[in-house]
């Protein structure tokens, strides 16, 4: 279906509405016009046809009159010809009548002849008549029949004319059944009948006159009678058909027809009887004549009547056709008019609607949103206009909204712009007052237009478009060339590592008009292709800082130097010796060697450079600085040209560098070293002698000044210098025991401490070693028997005490044995119960090994009496305390009569071996301390939530927060953050006088800072290995709502404590 209509639809789519309607309208009107034309022309043809027929009827009526006169004339003329000359007058009269009939006919012919094409035939007929008229009176009686025949032929021509008129006037072609029968009668049957009747009547008169008729004549007359009958019969048939079909015709013609039907047969019968009937049947001539005349008259009457009827019928037909035509034309025209009218209205309605919408849309398109279409119709167009109006309504509302939003946006935008301007200004302000200069430049090495105000201050002028090289090194052309090459390399280099390496070659500090300016470099890569990368310089005036730093650096340098020297003492002494030797003889010897001055210079340069490196490695900063300066001088000389260098010139230039001068440099550093390490340090060449106290204070200094990383590097090395073999700590004991035994009158084998070469921090083990005196004393005083007792017991006279030190993976084991009397477990139990150390029940449950340990309890003493040397019951407990402090343990094994064995397990407390404490380690004590502190202030911790880490190292702060910095061998921050109510409670708990002098906020901050400090310091005390190596200091305390701090590089651990008054957060950042 779609494909069927597609071409038309396409055509329609191409046309405007006006053309669409015009096209359809033309097609409708055209087809209607064609139809009407065809219909009307058909009707007109019929009307013409019938009108022509009517003309034929009219003509024939005139012809019938002529026929009537003609056949009357023929009969009269025949009578005259056969001898009735008395009829001459009548004949002339008859001729006149015929002429009159002719003239009447010619009048008709004048009117119709041209249409019916009869004129020429009529003229022929008339001429024939004229001939007949001239010859009329010349016929002899014997030629009467010839005259009759001539007249008959002439009448035949009249009938021919009737036929022709019938043909040319379409009468013969009439299609209507009624009329066609009548016409047939009129054209063929009736003229024939009139003719034959006339003949019969004319001849009959002759018959009546002459009694003797030849057979031929009789036959001929009978034939005429037969033809009359036959004609009448045919006529009757036609008439009957018409009568059957058309009642009105019957009514009109019935009477005349009946007359014909009656009279004609009677006449014919009489005629035939006269001719062929018996002689006696006398038929009066008069009867025959009048009968004939009546019959002919009736036939003519019928003839005329039929013609009239045909004329009426034709008229009726014409009227009907005309009416039909008028009706059809009128109907079609009115329908056409109506259609056209409606179509125009439709066109107007649709097209106008569309045009109106179009105009509406055009005006809308021009921005006239308030325009509306008028709804004139209730059809789709109206609905469309309605929806367009609705749409416009919505559009207008939307437009209003958009405009409002735009206005709103405009306002916002302006605000934003204002804000941006403000921000830019404040940023600019910030940059200008950051105390740093910011400037950037591209590969042209010219300062870009934008730079911060500080730059102007640093360079003391506007620097826009100035060469960076000239700014950095105003006077040093060489450096400028170098920098230029370097910058160009940086701009070209794509490998980041190499670029970074080039960056590191750039000067980090400059001296600009007497000020030290720190320079940081940052390459700013713009998105590819947009712009060449630029380099930003961040200039910081470091003059003041430099001073502070140089002091700090000085101290650091000293420390590094001391540690390096101490730890690489051999290298140090070798370097010092080499250098001293070089100074004393070097220059002179170089001169004596007989080399070229230039060659000597290069050798000298290299030597100095090597010394610089060597001393630099030892951290002897002073030496390095001096040697570097000398090297620079040498380099300058070298650059001036080596080949032409003369000895005199060289010597002259090197004059300031006397041996004394150069040794003096060394002496400066050595003086510093001596100050720290003591005089003894330099007394011997190969051995390092430093007082421990100096080392300790050095260590402490390092911890306070250097970073944890540096501490971790230096401190172990330094500590090892102080370390002694563990054996040394116990060294006094063998002699002590011998002395002691003597006083107790006991004999002891001389013994040596075996093992114990492991180096330990003497300070750590000193306490333990000192307290071992109790063990040895016990062994001598209580363990060993007197020589007599020993002999009695069957032992060797002289007792044996041993002290052995093993190193195991866990640490050191110190084994002290005696082969004395030993102890009984039950005896120990008994004493323990007596001294109230333990109740009876518990004691009995203890295994022997456990029971032996009771001797270490406070207040336990096995001796019966208190002596100067033993028995106060504190000795072994002190040993236990010492060993517990070291984190060790003790095992006692004793057998009555055999001896006692003490086995002490000591962990190796090597600084380097044990990992430095981490911030995480203080978390537990921190938490405990915090809880304790809160409890002491009357706050109960209801809940404690631990949060490990957080997004981007973000720490959410409560209203008050204290930051505490932890430094030393471990580093990090502690953040104590609490709700205000909690801090207020704390403040109330430690309320003091004079608080009113500061504001509440300050006071709360102060309290929180104090609390935080207390917690951290208490917690640090509980961390092993942190003694003095870690320091905590309050950084800052702030009061801020909904603040957060960010430590993206660090790990964050937070504990949230619910106190009932609010939350207290404890965060560790490390």
């Amino acid at each position: 279906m779609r494909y069927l209509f597609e071409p038309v639809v396409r055509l329609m789519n191409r046309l405007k509405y006006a053309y669409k309607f015009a096209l359809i309208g033309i097609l409708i009107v055209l087809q209607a016009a064609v139809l009407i034309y065809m219909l009307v022309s058909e009707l007109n043809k019929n009307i013409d046809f019938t009108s022509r027929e009517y003309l034929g009827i009219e003509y024939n009526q005139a012809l019938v009159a002529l026929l009537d006169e003609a056949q009357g004339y023929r009969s009269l003329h025949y009578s005259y010809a056969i001898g009735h000359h008395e009829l001459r007058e009548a004949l002339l009269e008859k001729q006149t009548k015929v002429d009159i009939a002719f003239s009447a006919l010619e009048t008709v012919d004048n009117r119709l002849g041209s249409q019916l094409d009869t004129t020429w035939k009529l003229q022929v007929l008339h001429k024939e008549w004229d001939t007949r008229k001239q010859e009329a009176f010349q016929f002899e009686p014997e030629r009467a029949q010839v005259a009759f025949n001539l007249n008959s032929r002439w009448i035949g021509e009249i009938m021919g004319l009737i036929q022709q008129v019938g043909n040319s006037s379409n009468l013969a072609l009439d299609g209507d059944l009624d009329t066609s029968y009548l016409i047939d009668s009129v054209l063929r049957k009736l003229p024939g009948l009139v003719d034959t009747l006339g003949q019969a009547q004319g001849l009959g008169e002759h018959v009546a006159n002459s009694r003797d008729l030849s057979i031929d004549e009789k036959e001929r007359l009978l034939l005429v009678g037969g033809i009359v009958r036959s004609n009448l019969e045919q006529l009757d048939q036609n008439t009957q058909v018409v009568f059957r079909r058309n009642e009105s015709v019957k009514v009109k013609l019935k009477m005349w027809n009946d007359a014909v039907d009656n009279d004609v047969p009677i006449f014919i019968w009489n005629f035939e009887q006269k001719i062929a009937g018996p002689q006696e049947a006398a038929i009066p001539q008069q009867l025959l004549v009048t009968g004939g005349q009546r019959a002919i008259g009736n036939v003519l009457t019928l003839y005329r009547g039929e013609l009239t009827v045909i004329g009426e019928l034709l008229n009726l037909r014409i009227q009907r056709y005309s009416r039909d035509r008028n009706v059809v034309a009128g109907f079609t025209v009115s329908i056409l008019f109506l259609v056209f009218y409606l179509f125009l209205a439709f066109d107007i309605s649709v097209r106008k609607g569309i045009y109106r919408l179009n105009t509406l849309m055009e005006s809308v398109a021009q921005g006239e949103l308030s325009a509306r279409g008028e709804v004139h119709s209730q059809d789709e167009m109206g609905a469309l206009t309605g929806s367009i109006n609705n749409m416009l309504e919505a559009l207008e509302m939307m437009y209003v909204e958009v405009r409002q939003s735009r206005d709103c946006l405009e306002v916002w935008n302006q605000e934003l712009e204002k804000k941006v301007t403000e921000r830019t200004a404040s940023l600019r302000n910030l940059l200008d007052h950051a105390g740093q200069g910011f400037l950037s430049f591209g590969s042209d090495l010219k300062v870009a237009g934008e730079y911060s105000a500080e730059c102007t201050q640093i360079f003391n002028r506007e620097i826009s478009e100035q060469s960076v090289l000239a700014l950095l090194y105003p006077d040093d052309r060489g450096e400028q060339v170098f920098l230029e090459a370097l910058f160009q390399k940086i701009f070209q280099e794509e490998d980041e590592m190499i670029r970074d390496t080039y960056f590191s070659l750039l000067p980090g500090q400059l001296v600009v008009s007497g000020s030290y300016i720190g320079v940081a470099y940052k390459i700013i890569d713009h998105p590819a292709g947009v712009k060449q990368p630029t380099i930003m310089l961040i200039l910081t005036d470091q003059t003041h800082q430099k001073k502070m730093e140089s002091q700090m650096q000085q101290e650091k340098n000293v420390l590094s130097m001391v540690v390096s020297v101490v730890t690489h003492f051999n290298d140090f002494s070798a370097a010092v010796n080499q250098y001293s030797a070089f100074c004393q003889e070097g220059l002179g010897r170089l001169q004596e060697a007989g080399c070229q001055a230039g060659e000597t210079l290069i050798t000298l340069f290299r030597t100095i450079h090597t010394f610089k490196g060597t001393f630099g490695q030892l951290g002897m900063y002073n030496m390095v600085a001096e040697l570097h300066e000398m090297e620079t001088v040498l380099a300058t000389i070298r650059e001036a040209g080596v080949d032409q260098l003369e000895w005199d010139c060289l010597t002259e230039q090197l004059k300031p560098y006397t041996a004394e001068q150069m040794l003096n440099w060394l002496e400066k550093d050595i003086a510093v070293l001596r100050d720290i390490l003591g005089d003894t340090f330099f007394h011997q060449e190969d051995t390092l002698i430093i007082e421990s106290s100096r080392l300790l204070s050095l260590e402490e200094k390092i911890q306070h000044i250097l970073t944890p990383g540096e501490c971790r590097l230096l401190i172990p090395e330094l500590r090892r210098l102080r370390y002694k073999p563990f054996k040394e700590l116990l060294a006094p004991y063998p002699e002590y025991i011998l002395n002691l035994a003597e006083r107790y009158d006991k004999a002891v084998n001389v013994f040596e401490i075996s093992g114990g070469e492991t180096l330990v921090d003497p300070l750590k083990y000193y306490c333990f070693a000192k307290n071992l005196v109790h063990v040895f004393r016990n062994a001598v005083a209580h363990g060993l028997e007197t020589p007599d007792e020993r002999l009695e017991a069957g032992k060797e006279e002289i007792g044996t005490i041993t002290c052995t030190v093993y190193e195991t993976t866990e640490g050191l084991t110190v084994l002290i044995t005696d082969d004395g009397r030993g102890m009984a477990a039950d005896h120990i139990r008994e004493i323990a119960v007596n001294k109230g150390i333990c109740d009876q029940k518990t004691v009995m449950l203890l295994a022997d090994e456990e029971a032996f340990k009771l001797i270490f309890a406070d207040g336990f003493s096995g001796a019966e009496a208190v002596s100067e040397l033993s028995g106060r019951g504190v000795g072994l407990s002190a040993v236990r305390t010492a060993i517990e402090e070291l984190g060790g343990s003790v095992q006692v094994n004793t057998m009555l009569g055999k001896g006692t064995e003490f086995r002490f397990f000591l962990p190796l407390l090597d600084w380097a071996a044990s990992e430095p404490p981490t911030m995480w380690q203080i978390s537990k004590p921190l938490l405990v301390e915090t809880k304790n502190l809160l409890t002491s202030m009357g706050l109960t911790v209801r809940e404690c939530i631990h949060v490990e880490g957080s997004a981007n190292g973000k720490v959410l702060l409560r209203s008050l927060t204290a930051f505490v910095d932890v430094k030393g061998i471990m580093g990090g921050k502690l953040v104590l953050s609490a709700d205000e109510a909690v801090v207020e409670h704390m403040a109330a708990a430690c309320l003091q006088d004079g608080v009113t002098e500061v504001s509440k906020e300050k006071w709360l901050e102060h309290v929180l800072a104090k609390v935080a400090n207390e917690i951290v310091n208490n917690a640090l005390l509980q961390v092993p290995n942190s003694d003095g190596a870690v320091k905590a200091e309050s950084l800052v305390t702030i009061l801020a709502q909904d603040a957060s701090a960010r430590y993206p590089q660090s790990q964050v651990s937070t504990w949230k404590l619910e106190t009932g008054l609010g939350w207290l957060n404890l965060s560790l950042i490390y």
Partner: protein
Amino acid sequence: MAQILVVDDSLMMRRTIRRILEQSGHTVVAESGNGEQAILDYEQHQPDLVTLDITMPGLNGIETLKRIISSHPQAVIIMVSALGQNRMIFEAMQAGAKNYIMKPIGDEKLLSVIDLVLESSKCTDIAGGQRGIIF
């Protein structure tokens, strides 16, 4: 871990560098006291990396670098320089040194530079290898 050639005219420096390197697992294939020796040692050992002192008697560091690079363009060489030798370093970088280290030499500093250089030269090797397959 890399095979490293240490070139320095100072015995102490050589020892220091050797100690640092060996502590972190590198192998010092040879120590050269001067440039000529260094070139011979390089030929003999074909080390992964060379630490090359700039200031040396005879052939200086830059000359040595140039000679080694001319016969072994792929050589990975780190310059060892004293303070104030930025221009020499720059020249060395132009001549093909991969990086440099400033005296006095610290463990971390030296090792991080060596790691950096070895890492990036490894990358270059891989890239080069791939190129070899493609073409």
